[in-house]
């Protein structure tokens, strides 16, 4: 890993109903274009973009999943290894907003990180040994960052979901909220770069907490806020 040309590698997975614009967001960010008339995503698409943040090379592995129901089980398998999930809905489509709780339930179910309990044994030597292994295992579980994105704000006159509603919902679920337009390239860059900042912050924090060289250290599951951070 150290041989490769980056300081951090993060897995970001985009999820949300079909047609809300996940593929367009990813294309806008990775290729700088708004693809005309591309079809619904089949299975999962995979793209990589390396960005530089405060002098550090961050490789973002972006998984663009298909929103259609029949691909759901493929999508679910990616939740657990993701560092961040971008949950997307379409502000002109009430339905895509109403499905959010369902998505969150799914995330809960599939992204669950095991909470490791420290064991207590009778034999002291053995117990100490257990403790060491427990700590090693403990380090395996990671934090998962969740971002809620309302896309298609260029279609302001067709808006069906009010910003306040979405913000309230996001806050209740401890998610960051951002409104974007893949078409007008509004907030797209910000979405991914802020997320990268937050992921770095998280990784550094965990490294500190564990004082350890484990590649992706972390604590038990917490869903964290995405605080604003400046790029460069």
């Amino acid at each position, binding site marked *: 890993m150290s041989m490769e040309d980056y300081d951090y590698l993060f897995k970001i997975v985009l999820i949300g109903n079909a047609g809300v614009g996940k593929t367009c967001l990813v294309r806008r960010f990775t290729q700088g274009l708004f693809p005309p008339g591309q079809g619904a995503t089949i299975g999962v*698409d995979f793209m990589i973009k390396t960005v530089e943040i405060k002098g550090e090379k961050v490789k973002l592995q972006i998984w663009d999943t298909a929103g259609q129901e029949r691909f759901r089980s493929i999508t679910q398998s990616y939740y657990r290894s993701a560092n961040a999930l971008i949950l997307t809905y379409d502000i002109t489509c009430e339905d895509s907003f109403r499905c959010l709780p369902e998505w969150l339930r799914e995330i809960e179910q599939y992204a669950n990180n095991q909470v490791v309990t420290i064991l207590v044994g009778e034999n002291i030597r053995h117990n100490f040994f257990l403790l060491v292994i427990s700590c090693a295992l403990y380090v395996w579980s990671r934090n998962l960052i969740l971002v809620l994105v309302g896309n298609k704000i260029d279609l302001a006159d067709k808006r069906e979901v009010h910003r306040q509603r979405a913000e309230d919902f996001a806050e209740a679920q401890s998610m960051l909220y951002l409104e974007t337009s893949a078409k007008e390239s509004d907030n797209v860059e910000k979405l991914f770069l802020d997320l990268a900042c937050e992921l770095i912050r998280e990784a550094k924090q965990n490294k500190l907490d564990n004082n350890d060289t484990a590649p992706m250290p972390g604590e038990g599951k917490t869903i964290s806020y995405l605080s604003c951070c400046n790029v460069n």
Partner: protein
Amino acid sequence: MADSGSVPARRCGSGSVSSVSMDTISALTELEDLENIYQQLCSEEKEVEAELDRLVGQESTIHTKMLALQRMGPKLQLIEGDASQLSGMITFTCSLAENVSRKVRQLDLAKTRLYNVIQRADDILDLKFCTDGVQTALRNEDYEQAAAHIHRYLSLDQSVIELSRQGEESSSVDASLVLLQEAEQKLKVIVSEKLDEAVAAVDLAQVERFFKIFPLLGLHQQGLARFGQYLCTQLAAKAEENLILATGGDVGDKRAPLIFADTLTLLLEGIARVIETHQPIVETYYGPGHLYTLIRHLQEECDKQAQKIVDKFIQQRGYHNKFQIVQNSMLKTIPELDPVLTEVTIMNARAELYLRFLRRRILADFEVGDIQSITKEHQQNVEKLLKHCQLSRTMQELIGYYIPMEEYYMRESVNKAVTMDTYEKGQLTSSMVDDCFYIVKKCISRALSSSSIDCLCAMINHANSVLESDFREVLYNKLRQGFPATTLQDIQRGVSSAVSLMQSSLQQGKFNTLGIESTENAKTAFLNDCAKLFTQGTSSVEQAKIESCLSDLVNTSTKFKDLLQEGLTELNTTAIKPQVKPWISSFLSISHNIEEEEFNDYEANDPWVQQLIVNLEQLMCEFKVALSPVIYDTLTSLMTSLISIELEKTVLKCSFSRLGGLQFDKELRSLVAYLTTVTTWTIRDKFARLTQMATILNLERVTEILDYWGPNSGPLTWRLTPAEVRQVLALRIDFRSEDIKRLRL
């Protein structure tokens, strides 16, 4: 010439500038000055004379040149005459050429017009010929001939026909045209009817006969549609027959669990065969690029029939039921998932194979026309047809159910293996580890056999999750029950199994045992296998997807590996160190400040090292039987490091006589010799510092160290710093500290 011109000018110049003027001379009064001027004038005179001589010398050369010039005069007059004559000739030729080319142009124009006239005459004749021919052919029911005439008529230049109608023969041409148009309509109707009849009569020869006529009448789309319909009817009949056979029950036990996969295979192979058979006709009579249209028609039927098979499959196998059970985990027993999962993966693999076949054929057909002609639109159409057809959707749905069921199967089987875990004494690992990895491997292999990369990736993700959570849990429970040694085995087994899982998923038969270190190799091998499996159409994106998912699996195995290392280090610290440390410290109680007598006594009755070796032997024996060679080796390595560190600390607390140093040297040699026999690691390196300390303690004089130090060290690399060397020297009671201080190291 230039010379002769410039001479007078120069002379003039020199006369007025360089000569001393008369006025100056007259004004002179001193003799000395006069003499000076005189001298000056004399030298100037000499110069002038020399100049004059030089000029006179040039006269003859100039004369010769002048003569030559005079002789050239008449020749120049001759040239002028020739030149004007030439110019006259060129002008003449030019006008002549102009003249000729104008005529040629006129001729050319005339020729073109003539050709046009001939063409038109031909066309008119053809028109007449066609008109007559069509009538005759129609009367004789020679539809090919009739169509050929109509085709000839349709390929005539329409503007020419228009022109002809304005000419003198307009009425007759008009009449022909009307007749032809009537014939065209009539023929179209007849051919359509005949084709319908042939289709109804299932008369392939006749169907093909009329199918070939359609493009002659410009009815490509219609022809392909009707022919497609015909082929679809055939396919449908066959497919229904097969499905009835499949569900009839009488299929023999062996194929019964795969009967729906077989039926789907029959359908897809049937369509592929139809395409293969009829491609030449389409290409010959319709031209390249039309196969796509025919396949589009066939795909509609394929979608319909495949759906029927899948519906029957879902119904008879209780596919959705099973999914529901899995979803709700209603029953604690695993429903019979194995066969149905296998069947689904085969079905998907067949569909993928079939769709790849279609893509290849369609693109090849476009390419026959012109490689350049495969436009983006073509490509998009093909993608749309293949990716979004009902067959694809149906398969995607099946796979969508398959993944959670396979995951459930994997998880439950692993759980079952764990509960049935047997640990027999003398066995290094529990059966559970092998069982777990066997199951995981089986599930990944099955996902791989579906040929769907997304399905494979999803199952790799789930496998990783099972290993990271469920399997990890298991290790915990074992620890809780107090089997640290076995648990270490299990972890180690886990590491190597994760490696071999990737490596052997596909490499049946080619299994070679790689060490723990080669997870990367295993990943590469696995990727190669995937590449081989998906040779057609594995894009770099798909490769990257698999690679990324596998990386997670590699990470898991690395975590197991780290865990193992930590466990072993801990074992060393908690189980070995407390015992070994006092054995080493007992060295302190054995005096090494000894004389001849005691040295001999030690020789007879070993005071320390033999007991240490016996103790170590006993300690390690316990581990040797309980641990696998790899782990045992790692542990002995940790132990030898421990011994060398502890012994070093102890030795530095002792004092030595000359013979005491010799005694220590002997003891150290015995210990190293023993440890070399119990480990495969080279331990000389670990004992390098101690060996060097023994060498120092064994010296005759302080200065003897210089025979081994610096430029004299030879092949020996000192691991001790100069300060440490002095410290060790100071342990010898017979070495004076001034001598040691005086050493220049």
